[in-house]
């Protein structure tokens, strides 16, 4: 229905009287308007700013939030108004939509914020008016590109169960993923450079031998150059075959540009091997050697800039085509004119129109070699016109190509910058996250601590007031613990127990993988190398002794350390061991299953009261004990059974 002109419906109905005399059948009965409500003003309170409008204005669009009964959910009985806790600035344009029937997109508004508002109020963005629609779509596309860049980086994450083939392919595509890939990358780059240099040096005159003139180095040191060439081609062949093997879709890989370049680079050598010194084909053989220069294009795998250039040229294909076409037209015109102008003069170099092409091209591109010069006056006049117009024709499409290149280049820069910033951002987010995770562990310790203190009769002075939200969250985590009959611990306790069970050759630890942020990878990989011996004085005597705990004592000399001064917290966490839990531990025989957020503990823990535990642990770097790879390189979610 034409909701925008709902105000005119009474008129349209009244005008229907015009059909009545013409009609032959009786008319249906009109619907009764039982509500008979006088049009009333509605107050919409959006974050304190009050908007008022008629009820019928809002009723124009019954499939939106404000037009339907959905707004009743937001009705405030006390103040008799509808309260929305949203952005009042964005609400302006939404309310204007009801009033005028046209939705406008305010340019200063962030596109995703605006989208969210639209979704909240149930308005589809497609009805944005023509005046603002283009801008909206442009901004949306830009935003999408930005987000896509972010998402592409997550593809770099290594999935746990990649086959050898997939690993290899990933190594080829992203050299930074593993050291082997990096080595391979640099080796191939090196050999490409060697190959190109030898091709170049081959042709340099090398100094004369006793009875011959200067001959190029290639002919003088044939064997050496042949060996180098063979080595390079072997490397390239191996690389190509490996890529072909690892490619997920071999057919698509063979059709890709890079693989064609690879093939073209190595083929001349093999063709040369196959063909012996056959007189008639040796000429063709020599031309084949030209193709060896294509090896330089293999550098585009190594250089981002080259790829951007290639991509730009591809995306500017139409502009380049136009440039070429207009240049051709101009060349033909001017060549013809010059030819006929110079026809009269004797000993003119302008022997034919194709011969004049050379002059025209050289002039239009303002090269001006001077090997062909017009001699007649008419020729000189036309020659000058030619050079002036050449500048113009070339200058026209160039800015388009330049702007395209600039856009793509900046996009790439932005992606790189974001990648660099992402690490810092993720670190900050990680700290915030782990803060909340450790808050729970902390509150648990506080709870136990207060119990302990109660036992010893001391006053509890360090009762941090926990907000209601926090306490409810902690209660929730506690419930989960009780459900699964496992407890949350921090990293070190987990690693400790992990090692201990490993030493006791308990077979059961099944790291269950869950999705988490990749920084855990770097954290764990760091963990592999650092260990800290723990002086046994650090262990509080409150440990109940059991077979497990004695092993723990033994292991006390070995501690996996994550680089922060948190060691004192482990002694705290030992307090977690309650007497009743130990029996559970024994029966469970050290089954460590992995279950929650594992993050490097933040320095926040260091702010806890230090008075209870022993001296700080020494931090040194003794020879490392390699933990099994299950903790490293996999994003795991850990819970340990204490």
């Amino acid at each position, binding site marked *: 229905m*034409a909701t925008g002109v709902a105000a005119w419906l009474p*008129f*349209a109905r009244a005008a229907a009287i015009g*059909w009545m*005399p013409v009609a032959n059948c009786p008319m249906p009965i*009109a619907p009764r*308007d039982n509500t008979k409500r006088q049009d009333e003003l509605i107050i919409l309170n959006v974050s304190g700013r009050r908007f008022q409008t008629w009820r019928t204005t809002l009723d124009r669009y019954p499939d939106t939030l404000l037009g339907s009964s959905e707004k009743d959910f937001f009705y405030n009985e006390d103040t008799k108004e509808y309260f929305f806790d949203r952005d009042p600035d964005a609400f302006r344009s939404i309310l204007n939509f009801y009033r005028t029937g046209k939705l406008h997109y305010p340019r200063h508004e962030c596109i995703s914020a605006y989208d969210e508002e639209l979704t909240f109020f149930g308005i589809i963005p497609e009805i944005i008016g023509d005046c603002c629609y283009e801008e909206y779509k442009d901004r949306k596309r830009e935003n999408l590109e930005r987000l896509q860049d972010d998402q592409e980086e997550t593809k770099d994450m290594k999935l746990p169960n990649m086959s050898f083939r997939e690993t290899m392919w990933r190594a080829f595509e992203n050299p930074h993923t593993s050291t082997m890939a990096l080595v391979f990358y640099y080796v191939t780059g090196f050999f490409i450079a060697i190959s190109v240099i030898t091709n170049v040096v081959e042709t340099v005159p090398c100094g004369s031998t006793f009875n011959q003139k200067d001959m190029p180095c290639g002919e003088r040191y044939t064997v050496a150059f042949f060996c180098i060439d063979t080595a390079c081609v072997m490397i390239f062949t191996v690389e190509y075959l490996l890529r072909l093997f690892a490619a997920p879709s071999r057919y698509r890989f063979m059709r890709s540009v890079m693989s064609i370049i690879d093939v073209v680079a190595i083929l001349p050598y093999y063709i040369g091997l196959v063909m012996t010194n056959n007189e008639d084909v040796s000429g063709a053989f020599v031309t084949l050697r030209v193709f060896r220069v294509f090896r330089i294009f293999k550098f585009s795998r190594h250089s981002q800039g080259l790829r951007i250039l290639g991509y730009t040229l591809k995306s500017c294909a139409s502009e380049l085509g136009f440039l070429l076409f207009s240049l051709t037209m101009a060349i033909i015109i001017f060549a013809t004119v010059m030819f006929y102008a110079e026809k009269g003069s004797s000993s003119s170099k302008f022997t034919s129109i194709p011969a004049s092409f050379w002059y025209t091209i050289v002039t239009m591109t303002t090269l001006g070699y001077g090997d062909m010069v017009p001699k007649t006056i008419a020729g000189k006049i036309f020659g000058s016109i030619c050079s002036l117009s050449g500048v113009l024709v070339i200058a026209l499409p160039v800015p388009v190509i330049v702007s395209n290149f600039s856009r793509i280049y900046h996009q790439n820069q932005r992606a790189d910058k974001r990648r660099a910033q992402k690490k810092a951002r993720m670190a900050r987010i990680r700290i915030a996250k782990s803060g909340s995770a450790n808050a729970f562990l902390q509150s648990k310790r506080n709870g136990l601590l207060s119990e302990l203190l109660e036992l010893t009769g001391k006053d509890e002075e360090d009762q941090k007031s926990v907000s209601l939200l926090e306490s409810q969250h902690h209660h929730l985590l506690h419930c989960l613990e009780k459900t699964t009959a496992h407890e949350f611990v921090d990293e070190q306790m987990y690693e400790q127990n992990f090692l201990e069970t490993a030493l006791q050759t308990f077979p059961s630890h099944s790291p269950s993988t869950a999705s988490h942020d990749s920084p855990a990878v770097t954290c764990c990989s760091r963990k592999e190398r650092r260990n800290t011996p723990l002086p046994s004085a650090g262990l509080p005597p409150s440990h109940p002794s059991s077979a497990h705990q004695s092993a723990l004592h033994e292991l006390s000399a070995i501690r996996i350390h994550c680089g922060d001064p948190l060691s004192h917290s482990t002694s705290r966490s030992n307090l977690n061991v309650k007497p009743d839990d130990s029996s559970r531990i024994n029966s469970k025989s050290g089954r460590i299953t992995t279950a929650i957020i594992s993050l490097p503990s933040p320095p926040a823990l260091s702010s806890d009261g230090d008075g209870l535990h022993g001296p700080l642990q020494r931090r040194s770097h003794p020879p490392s004990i390699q933990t099994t790879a299950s903790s490293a390189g996999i994003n795991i979610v850990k819970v340990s059974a204490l």
Partner: protein
Amino acid sequence: MDPRRVLTVSARVDAAVSSTDSVEDELELSTVRHRPEGLEQLEAQTRFSRKELQILYRGFKNECPSGVVNEETFKDIYSQFFPQGDASTYAHFLFNAFDTDHNGSVSFEDFVMGLSILLRGTVQEKLIWAFNLYDINKDGYISKEEMLDIMKAIYDMMGKCTYPVLKEETPRQHVEVFFQKMDKNKDGVVTIDEFIDSCQNDENIMRSMHLFENVL
């Protein structure tokens, strides 16, 4: 009808270029704005209450901020109610029926007068209004051609997808039926008296005249 106050505001846009440039003359902006009579006068002239007039004017002014409706806008608005067919021809006739002083635009007074007759008028007045609608050239007679035009316009609003399928001669047949009913002396035209008489004798038509009384 009281003389309307029509304000014609014209602004000539002068660029830096001298006024001899003919292009600049095309930029002369003239906006016609119309302010209606006061509320009391309209109340006196029509059968609407004050509140109803307020509601009507608000809707009217929302759609047409300048205060007058020209034929294009009128056609647009009316067509939105009949998305399946083509309502432009009928809207044209309707526009002429509302535009009582034939100045090419429907002001709020015209609009409200027409509505007053249609919604609050006596049956006689409504029939007279309908007669004026059908009488395209306003000569006091409805000829068969005029009726055919009106009929085709009405059937156009139906569009293509109807059941049963609309045939070419359906409007013509309908006109024949109409004339049989209305044209008492069979002279090929319907006068206003014939029209009113025939309608008052027809029960269906009488009943349907009261159909839209509670629209506002």
